[in-house]
């Protein structure tokens, strides 16, 4: 079973990579860009049969390791 975890920076937390990339795109001529935000895409493969149970475990993986709740939010979906 495979799950897709998407990790995003929480609102209000500085995203220097996003800021610098916004400026870089604007300087390349893409003046219409007003913002860029970087996230992280993680695929977790598990040996499981019950999707709900497996999904709950992946959520736990996010809470404990994959995401830092101080600066990140996440979503989990089965793929």
């Amino acid at each position, binding site marked *: 079973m495979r799950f897709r975890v998407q990790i995003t920076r*929480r609102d209000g*937390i*500085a*995203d*220097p*990579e996003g*800021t*610098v990339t916004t400026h870089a795109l604007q300087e390349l001529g893409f003046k219409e860009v007003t913002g860029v935000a970087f996230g992280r895409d993680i695929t977790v493969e598990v040996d499981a049969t019950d999707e709900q149970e497996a999904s709950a475990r992946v959520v736990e993986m996010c809470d404990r*390791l*994959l995401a*830092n709740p*101080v*600066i990140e939010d996440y979503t989990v979906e089965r793929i």
Partner: protein
Amino acid sequence: MTHDSGLKVAVVVFPGSNCEHDVAHALRAMGADAELVFHRETDLSGADGIVLPGGFAHGDYLRTGAIARFSPIMAEVERHAALGTPIIGICNGFQVLTEAGLLPGAMVANSDLRFICRFVPVRVESTDSVLTRNAEVGQILRIPLNSFEGNFVSGGSEPQVVLRYVDRHGEPDATINGSRIAGIANPAGNVAGLMPHPERASDAMLGSADGRILLESFLTSMAAVPA
């Protein structure tokens, strides 16, 4: 000032740590008994103080310090933190302490996405910590900063700030890496973290001995804890 009382400092080594020898050397030069302890060890019962040194634990994979916080040694670090043992995290060590929840907040990349490698001025904001008890509020120290992800964000917490980056006028400066905060401590003051490297400013030969007052504070704090 040296402490020739056999104070035992455990300097934790994670795979990828690279500042442990400099930290141990600086502490030994000040009379402490510093010992390198690999992250897989599980017994720090003899430690009077603990240092998590700088470097790139686990290659900063996933997030800096994210994996190191689960190392076997961290159970002992957490136990000592609750007991009031003086613990300091330097640079990557500070990052590990925030990931472990022993200090609040988190680190993000420096605001200009540059690896900063130079002396920076920091100002002592509070002497209520094992890192700063021998210093004076307002004192300005020149200490090397060597980091890419040293931009401390409080994330809604209100940490006890012990060191701030300042400009040459001694005023808070957030343009160095995006953060105004260079070092913090927990409410009890026994766990402290800072991004700059005091061990690299521990001898005039290194260009600055300003870091000594921070290491001396740490050793004084260790000597003050009842055995």
